């Protein structure tokens, strides 16, 4: 393992949205690669389920609602120096643009854009992100590579996040902090099974992916491991598309 550039041994990594979906899979993958993992999310019981899967590799559980200023500040105060962070907390909506009121945009941007941006800002400013740390933002192909009807409100929030990633990569490079994003296609998580799109429509949609299926959370988690590891030491400001070939 010593010569494995993909190893996360010796690294302390924060994962947000770690109670389900991509966040949970990322926490598990980081632990499997040897990292000490700090998990945060809104629901303490579900965070405990993630903790049960990573056991001793779990450095701390810090429940937080990242849209709340106080929670973010408390989280940052209680964090040890970090070698990496993966921002997985997010939400989605399927809404034609003519119904995209300011309120709907605000709801999406609060969770998908302002929350991770403020957390990153404070972690950088307070020097929680150590030299050579790596930050991974979970964006989406929606808004940057794919513009499917009904995804505009969600996609715009993820596009904004992806843009912030590039600026942060540029500025944070002075401390050798790397910032990258992953742009997943549709991933099989609780977010996509809320009923606006029926299971039949989802199954039909999955057929449009060249590799024949939707992503699994682990497909994204493994990309995050790469971006956190020393294997990607010279990679920053990149949006890594992991989408089964959908956007080709």
């Amino acid at each position, binding site marked *: 393992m010593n010569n494995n550039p993909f190893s996360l041994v010796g690294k302390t990594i924060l994962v947000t949205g770690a109670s389900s979906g991509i966040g949970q899979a990322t926490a598990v993958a980081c632990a499997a690669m040897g990292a000490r993992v700090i998990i945060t999310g809104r629901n303490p019981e579900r965070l405990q389920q993630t903790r049960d899967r990573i056991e001793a590799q779990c450095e701390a559980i810090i429940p937080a609602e990242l849209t709340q200023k106080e929670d973010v500040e408390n989280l940052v105060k209680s964090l040890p120096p970090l070698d990496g962070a993966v921002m997985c907390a997010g939400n989605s909506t399927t*809404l034609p643009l*003519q*119904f995209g009121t300011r309120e709907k945009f605000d709801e999406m941007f609060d969770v998908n854009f302002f929350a991770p941006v403020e957390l990153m800002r404070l972690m950088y400013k307070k020097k929680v992100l150590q030299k050579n740390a790596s930050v991974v933002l979970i964006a989406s192909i929606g808004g940057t590579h794919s513009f499917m*009807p*009904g995804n505009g409100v969600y996609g715009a929030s993820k596009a904004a996040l992806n843009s912030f990633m590039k600026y942060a990569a540029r500025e944070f490079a002075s401390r050798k902090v790397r910032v990258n994003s992953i742009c997943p296609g549709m991933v099989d998580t609780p977010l996509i099974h809320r009923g*606006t*799109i*029926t299971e039949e429509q989802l199954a039909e949609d999955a057929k449009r992916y060249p590799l024949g299926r939707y992503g699994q959370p682990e497909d994204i988690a493994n990309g995050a491991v790469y971006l956190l590891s020393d294997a990607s030491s010279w990679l920053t400001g990149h949006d890594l598309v992991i989408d089964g070939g959908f956007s080709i």
Partner: protein
Amino acid sequence: MNIQDFIDNFANQFDDTDKAVFTSETNFKQLDEWSSLTALSIIAMVDDEYNVIIKGSDIINSETIQDLFEIVVKKVRK
């Protein structure tokens, strides 16, 4: 809520279909203009106008506008 308002709101989600086509008995998924985006618009319109969240399966399970109206009415009363 009354059915005529619901039909009007429903018809408003279409651009090319004559308003006269829309009645409580209209088999809406058979309309040429019907698409997955129209379905999303209907779901959003019901949220907007009636403060009710319906699902894609509610649309699938409705044949006529009346069928969907009854689903929405039930949810409003809950």
